[in-house]
């Protein structure tokens, strides 16, 4: 297939005009981020999706300790495809976030500061984010090959038997994201909808 002729002039791994942001977040940074901002994340984050959440919350219910301290951290909703030999990771784009809504307030209570996925969050999650001063980010869905290029290291932290739903720690460099919910409670998807009307 002749993809080359369609290629943009330069190979972008992110958006244009990104604001660089370190993760975990440095003091005072969350306050500067607004719904609709394009950012580029560098640093470390944890991953988890449906089963990961179910297990974390089950541990909390049983009064047991979590395998990670989520305080101040960013949690990326992703279930990567397996890495081939020599690769850091396979494709690793976002999964749909609403499926984590049932669990998210519990994790925000522990001090989780940001989540990253795709799609809108429930009003309950949005209220919990506002209460705990947390934000929600989205990245581009279905671009798992491209996004894998911004992940420079991946290590297994817990729940290995859950396969793609295990909890990993990623090191990222220039990982692109859009701020959907800021700490003031604004929602970028709603802003887009309002623009149309």
């Amino acid at each position, binding site marked *: *297939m*002749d*993809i*080359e002729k*369609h*290629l*943009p002039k330069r*190979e*972008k791994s*992110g*958006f*244009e005009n990104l604001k660089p942001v370190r993760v975990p977040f440095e003091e005072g940074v969350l306050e500067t981020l607004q719904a609709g901002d*394009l950012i580029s994340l560098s640093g470390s984050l944890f991953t988890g999706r*449906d*089963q990961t959440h*179910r297990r974390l919350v089950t541990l909390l219910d049983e009064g047991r300790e979590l395998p990670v301290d989520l305080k101040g951290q960013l949690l990326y909703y*992703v*279930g*990567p*495809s*397996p*890495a*081939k030999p020599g*690769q850091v990771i*396979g*494709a*690793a*784009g976002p*999964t*749909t976030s*609403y499926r984590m809504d049932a669990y998210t307030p519990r994790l925000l209570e522990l001090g989780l500061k940001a989540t990253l996925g*795709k*799609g*809108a969050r429930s009003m309950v999650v949005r209220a919990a984010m506002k209460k705990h001063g947390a934000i929600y980010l*989205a990245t*581009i*869905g*279905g*671009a*798992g*090959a*491209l*996004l*894998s*290029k911004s992940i420079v290291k991946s290590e297994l932290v817990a729940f290995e038997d*859950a*396969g*793609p*739903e295990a909890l990993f720690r990623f090191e990222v460099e220039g990982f*692109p994201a*859009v701020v959907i919910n800021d700490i003031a409670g604004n929602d*970028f*998807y709603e802003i*887009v*909808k309002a*623009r*149309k009307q």
Partner: protein
Amino acid sequence: MRTLQSSEITKAVKDLAMSASCDLEPDILDHLVAARDREKSPLAKNALEMLITNANIASREQIPVCQDTGIGVVFISVGQEVIIEGDLENAVQEGIRAGYDEGYLRKSVCDPVTRKNTGTNVPAVVHYELEPGDRVHIAFLPKGCGSENMSGLVMLPPSAGIAGVVDYVVQKVKDAGSNPCPPVVVGVGLGGTFEKAALLAKKSLLRPLGEPNPDKNVAEIEQEILQRINREGQGVMGWGGVNTALAVHMETYPTHIASLPVAVNIQCHAHRHKEVEL
């Protein structure tokens, strides 16, 4: 009569599974490029460029286009003059298992009760049909569930008419918002019965992207739905712009005088589909 070994089916399914996840078909790519060229919103245009770049990296390095390499959906149409030696269903499932294993594809199939992952991406969902002749056609559609979950079916009263059908489909896409990774492809099944409508919606996704239904009346409805969806302004990833949907495909079947079933199967821009004839 022609004899076909089931091992040939296994090999064909395995090859389809491996290539479908990494190599987007030219019809999808052409639509992404056309969407980028007509897009005015800088953010959406930028995102479409990223999707084109993503397809390029995926094909060049044989990394899946999307990490959700789906639950396999296989349509097999067997010629009535073909004898298949061996177990056809096993042959298909074995092709899926081998393809997902050797292709480093994500295993996303689990038990619906225990949620335990089968670890192999097996079983795939397989639909069989008979056709005249001595050929076997296999179509493979790995279905990601960010988009599959946004699908729906309604049994409308016939009084709702085509206007009701169009409203239902447009509302489904609107409600899905950014969940199914727009720009989406919308498969619509109209008529038949409850299960027939769902199957028609899924099968319509196999059509070359954007090819209108040969029935002019149906093609007009496809266009009307597409234009209404794209006027809503949700756009790529729900970030605005004119490209919420790339295409609407509708398939119809005669229905009962009391019935008007409508099924909407939503597919994402990572619309992976491959076919082969044996």
